[in-house]
């Protein structure tokens, strides 16, 4: 008999322990990742109720959000950050949880570390107190962000009360044009489906464009599912997935790996798989994309001009006007040539080795434009080490970039890396919300790491294809 369930429903069914009175399922969580910002209050709940961690071996901790990227000497200069750091160290010690801390070279942004270590595997349910947990869906897992009360639920029971979402297949077929990256694909999808288009849905990304992508590119796509309103997004496991996992420290080994790979591949949505909705995009229509506003859907192709307010439905016009005002931009102006003050390469969206390689390729032999501050923050210590072995740090530094330690850094600016005043930042991160990069009036333009590199060396938004 053929299974007409899509991957999402197969994996969900396997983890549903019972139906609760609310109609929600009690879902077992295969991997729980925690970090310093959203976990301390959860451990406080455990202490208050005198509870233990139910499956301590299924939770892994690292530190990323508050980590300074210039000096990690303790105590941190920021005493609040130091307090959070000590809290996670103590909580992990007291409750028997594995912690990749700053002196462990496996430390990094939680969504980079999980896949890198082989903790993230197909067919798992993965939760973390962080909305970009959707990243791990690249492996064909159900991965989603949760709040702190739910972090406590997972710690105490390894389960969550959740309602099953619907599943939408988002197909992209055809050939991407040169200079168009995974980041552009997801920005395009968000632009077309809107920032709340995915609410109530999990996204299955399918089609030959995703089939051809590397695991790192797939992670970039799944990472930003949440920006489109979808709590999780995933890609069916295939040989690319299996090859990526093989040999990673926490992945199954030997015969167990062979058995695992067979099971993983069997989970993929088949030809007959059913979906609640299907949308299709043509790869050829996707341009190098840049956001101009204050939501990730407010974007244009680099060759386009900014839209007019009147071109939006009446209901949307208020938020569009708000975006123009905050960004201090005008209707109809070209995005190309817009001056930038800061260039940031990093984050769980685009802080992996392939991102740094691509940016370095653009930067090589060029120099950061006068007056632009440019920094590269590798997503993990291992990404950083790999990049240094390849000499990428030298390329960036010779070009005038700052080469930093691993962490979230200017993606959300909880550490000392912040925009000043109303600076404009070309950023490879995922959110262009008001104030996101640390200055309440700072302005963020999201784009691919190659486009950030191009902006850094020219001092303005530039079509990266013109630098090739």
């Amino acid at each position, binding site marked *: 008999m053929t299974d007409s369930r899509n991957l999402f429903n197969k994996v969900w069914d396997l*983890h*549903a*322990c*019972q139906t*609760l*009175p*609310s*109609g929600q399922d*009690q879902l*077992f969580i*295969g991997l729980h990742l925690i970090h310093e*910002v*959203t976990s*301390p*209050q959860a451990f406080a709940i455990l202490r208050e109720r005198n*509870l233990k961690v139910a499956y301590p071996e299924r939770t892994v901790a690292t530190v990323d959000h508050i980590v300074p990227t210039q000096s990690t000497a303790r105590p941190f200069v*920021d005493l*609040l950050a130091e307090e*959070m750091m000590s809290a996670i160290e103590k909580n992990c010690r007291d409750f028997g949880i594995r912690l990749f801390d700053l002196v462990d070279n496996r430390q990094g942004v939680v969504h980079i570390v999980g896949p890198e270590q082989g903790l993230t*595997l197909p*067919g798992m349910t993965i939760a973390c107190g*962080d*909305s970009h947990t959707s990243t791990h869906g690249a492996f064909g897992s159900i991965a989603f*962000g*949760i*709040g*702190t*009360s739910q972090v*406590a*639920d997972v710690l105490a*029971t*390894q*389960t969550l*009360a959740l*309602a099953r979402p619907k599943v939408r297949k988002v197909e992209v077929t055809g050939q991407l044009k040169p200079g168009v990256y995974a980041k552009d694909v997801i920005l395009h999808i968000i632009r077309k489906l809107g*920032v*709340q288009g995915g609410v*109530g849905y999990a996204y299955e990304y399918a089609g030959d464009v995703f089939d051809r992508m590397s695991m790192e590119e797939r992670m970039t796509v799944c990472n930003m599912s*949440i920006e489109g*309103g979808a*709590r999780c997004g995933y890609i069916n496991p295939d040989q690319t997935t299996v090859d990526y996992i093989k040999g990673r420290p926490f992945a199954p080994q030997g015969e*167990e790996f062979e*058995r*695992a790979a067979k*099971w993983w591949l069997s989970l993929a949505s088949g030809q007959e798989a059913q979906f609640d909705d299907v949308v299709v995009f043509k790869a050829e229509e996707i341009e190098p994309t840049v956001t101009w506003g*204050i*939501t990730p859907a407010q974007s244009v192709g680099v060759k386009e001009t900014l839209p007019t307010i009147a071109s939006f439905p009446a*209901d949307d016009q*208020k*938020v569009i006007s708000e975006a123009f005002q905050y960004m201090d931009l005008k209707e109809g102006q070209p995005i190309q040539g817009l001056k930038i003050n800061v260039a940031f390469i990093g984050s769980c969206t685009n802080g992996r080795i392939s991102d740094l390689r691509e940016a370095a390729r653009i930067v090589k032999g060029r120099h950061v434009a006068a007056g632009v501050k440019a920094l590269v923050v590798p997503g993990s210590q291992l990404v950083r080490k790999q990049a240094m072995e390849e000499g990428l740090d030298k390329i960036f530094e010779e070009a005038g970039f700052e080469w930093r330690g691993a962490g979230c850094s200017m993606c*959300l*600016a*909880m550490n000392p890396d912040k925009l000043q005043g109303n600076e404009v930042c070309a950023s490879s991160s995922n*959110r262009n*919300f*008001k*104030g996101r990069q*640390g200055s*309440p*009036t700072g302005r963020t333009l999201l784009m691919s790491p190659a486009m950030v590199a191009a902006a850094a060396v020219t001092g303005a938004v530039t079509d990266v294809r013109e630098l090739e």
Partner: protein
Amino acid sequence: MVQAITQVTGSAVPLLLDDIDTDRIIPARFLRCVTFDGLGEHAFEDDRIQDPAHPFNQAQFQGGKILVAGRNFGCGSSREHAPQALMRWGIQAIIAESYAEIFFGNCVSLGIPCVRASRANLEALTKLISADPRTSVAIDLLAQTLTAQSESGQQVKATVEIPPGAKQSLTTGGWDFLGQLLDGEPKVRAQVARIPYLQKFAV
């Protein structure tokens, strides 16, 4: 068992804007903390600094219990600090056109009902409470209605929506899920035996 929440009544705060993300509700710098205490005073801090007319700045909306918002409220970061900040500021329920999913779930875990109303009704409600901030707004979760009555006797009545699971949890006092999840332990153990990656991929 926590308290059952069947209705919330009080004055309201009008914030009928779309796509308000959780970074705006509580900027990241205030997340440098190990408890949620004290977050209330920083709710919407950067928006308030830039806009003196922000409703959270205005004397007449202090003490408001019900927040009236637009579409996709609470999008972005999963930080529970956002509903915690609103709750500690005094908000006990939200009426909006729609919500981001993680924010919605966080609110349910804290016993904050989030109901949906049509744009037209939200606009009528906003008009009423802006004209008379002492307007009393009542949300009845069981009947799924909202009733707003200004001091001058003007009224807005509307139906509101709430997903059945959230409604059940809030109105029966089942919104603290931890107890229920702990009780499910035998079923969890049985399920663990069937999950391949927990059994060396041999099941």
